[in-house]
């Protein structure tokens, strides 16, 4: 099996974020591997381990995991993290024309990179903690014309039958879905517990290859945006309101407050 995992470098969840010229200011904040993507890397490793003669991912397994990211030069740090968890190699699409790319462009670029790799499965996190759109995996499936299996809470792969089955919980209920390879899968954070890179993993990652590609290498050129930001205004931080200590009538005082404000 050849598995691709799409990952993204994002500002640390705790960092203060602001908009500059219509897009997120990424230069001024600490960046990390999107934590929801770690679950996708972990799930890819688990899938390979379950079907590897040695029980391990990596060269002896007969399978491979390729990380794919789109982002500025320093996004390679996020790739190193995934490689040290155990992925085999990485593709880094880096091009100044991609700064501020939206989901349509991102899915376009990722889909083109995936096309050239002959993959059986593509795994993604359910969303990036910065943009929070949750649409890129579905968009990639649409672009490739592959099966879409999103929000998976469990993934079972049958490589011999080139089949994959997932279970998921959505607004309508608990579903089981099935597809033939190739498929695009996104995994929810309840699916597993991502491993910490071991010392050995971190050392090995230093020797793994990251292939850097520009847009032209994928046969693409920059496209005009499909939408634009007119203005972005920071809202004054929500001022903390009243805080009262409960000394027996905290409950009824609360209800009086709510009645006064006419919310009940």
């Amino acid at each position, binding site marked *: 099996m050849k598995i691709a995992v799409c990952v993204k470098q994002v500002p640390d969840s705790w960092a203060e974020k602001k908009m500059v010229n219509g897009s997120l200011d990424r230069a001024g904040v600490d960046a990390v591997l999107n934590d929801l993507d770690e679950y996708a890397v972990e799930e890819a490793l688990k899938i390979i381990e379950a079907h590897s003669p040695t029980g391990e991912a990596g060269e002896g397994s007969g399978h491979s995991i390729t990380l794919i990211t789109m982002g500025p030069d320093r996004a390679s740090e996020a790739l190193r993290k995934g490689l040290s968890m155990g992925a085999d190699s990485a593709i880094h699409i880096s091009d100044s024309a991609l700064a501020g790319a939206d989901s349509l462009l991102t899915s376009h670029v990722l889909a083109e990179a995936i096309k050239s790799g002959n993959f059986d499965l593509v795994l993604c996190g359910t969303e990036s903690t910065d943009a929070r759109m949750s649409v890129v995996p579905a968009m990639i499936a649409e672009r490739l014309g592959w099966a879409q299996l999103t929000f998976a809470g469990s993934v079972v792969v049958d490589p011999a039958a080139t089949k994959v089955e997932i279970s998921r919980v959505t607004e309508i209920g608990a579903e089981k879905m099935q597809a033939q390879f190739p498929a695009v899968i996104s995994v929810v954070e309840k699916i597993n517990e991502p491993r910490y890179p071991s010392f050995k993993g971190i050392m090995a990652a230093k020797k793994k290859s990251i292939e850097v590609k520009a847009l032209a290498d994928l046969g693409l050129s920059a496209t005009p945006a499909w939408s634009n930001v007119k203005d972005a205004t920071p809202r004054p931080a929500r001022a*903390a309101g009243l805080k009262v200590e409960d000394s027996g009538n905290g409950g009824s005082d609360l209800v009086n407050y709510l009645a006064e404000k006419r919310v009940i």
Partner: protein
Amino acid sequence: MSSVAILIETIDGVVPKSAGELATFAKRMGEVTAVMVGGDCSSQLTNYSIDSLVQVDGVDVSKFGVPAYVDAIAAVIAAKNCDVLLVTSGARGKEIAGRVAVRTNSGVITDAIDIDSEKIATQSIFGGSTTVHSQVTTPLAIFTMRSNSVEIVEGACATSVEKLSATPSTATLKAEVLALEPLVKGGRPELTEAAIVVSGGRGTNGDFSAVEAFADSLGAAVGASRAATDAGWYPHSHQVGQTGKTVSPSLYVACGISGAIQHRAGMQTSKMIVAINKDPEAPIFELADYGVVGDLFAVLPSATAAISARK
């Protein structure tokens, strides 16, 4: 004037309140076409401003899900020459909108909380700390609208239903639903639609009875933090936050919830926030309009009693 398609998604045949909200937003921009996929649910739309009703068949959304909706919508947009599509901003709605955007090479803006007659959308991002206005520059503009963001303006609904047949694309048939176990719905309102949400966290220590009783006294929905859903105290479908649901009710009551950034991401745009927490330093108090420092097992029952006394 625009021609606006709105997608009516049903759950178990029931039209959610958000359909009326989509009609309200759509009417500001022009002619409204409601797209029904699967069954004819027009009898539940009679109070909304809808100029035409289209029922699409030929695609099986219960078996093929999101891409089947996309096939249906693409057929309506082509037939009706729509220049705007509005979908409710749930997990499924966003995927549908995203795929229609790819298929029609159109721009998409997700999770908007408002949109005006000029098709300029308002979003509240970074956990509510920044307000953004944006617009789509392609001939078809696609938006997903966060539920509970507008007061429904009622109006007249078309009475005849037009039928349209769509053909599933080959990719649609590649992933199929093998089995579906519908969510058991309690008697409480839907989390994303409720005017009031009362949520419990680790501080409940697994006992949600006080949270539920207070919620019921207010006719509220019950939410939970991830600590509570991870512990199995409450179903995951009730989780509020980054990896759960995003809610923006007029009142959000956080009980025994510390206010982690991932939780805030799902509730920070609530109009009023109340926190009940026994730790005076809990970060949730930073965003609470009204905070009670105390034991939720004492505060909630007395609040519930006070509500009952007012009735």
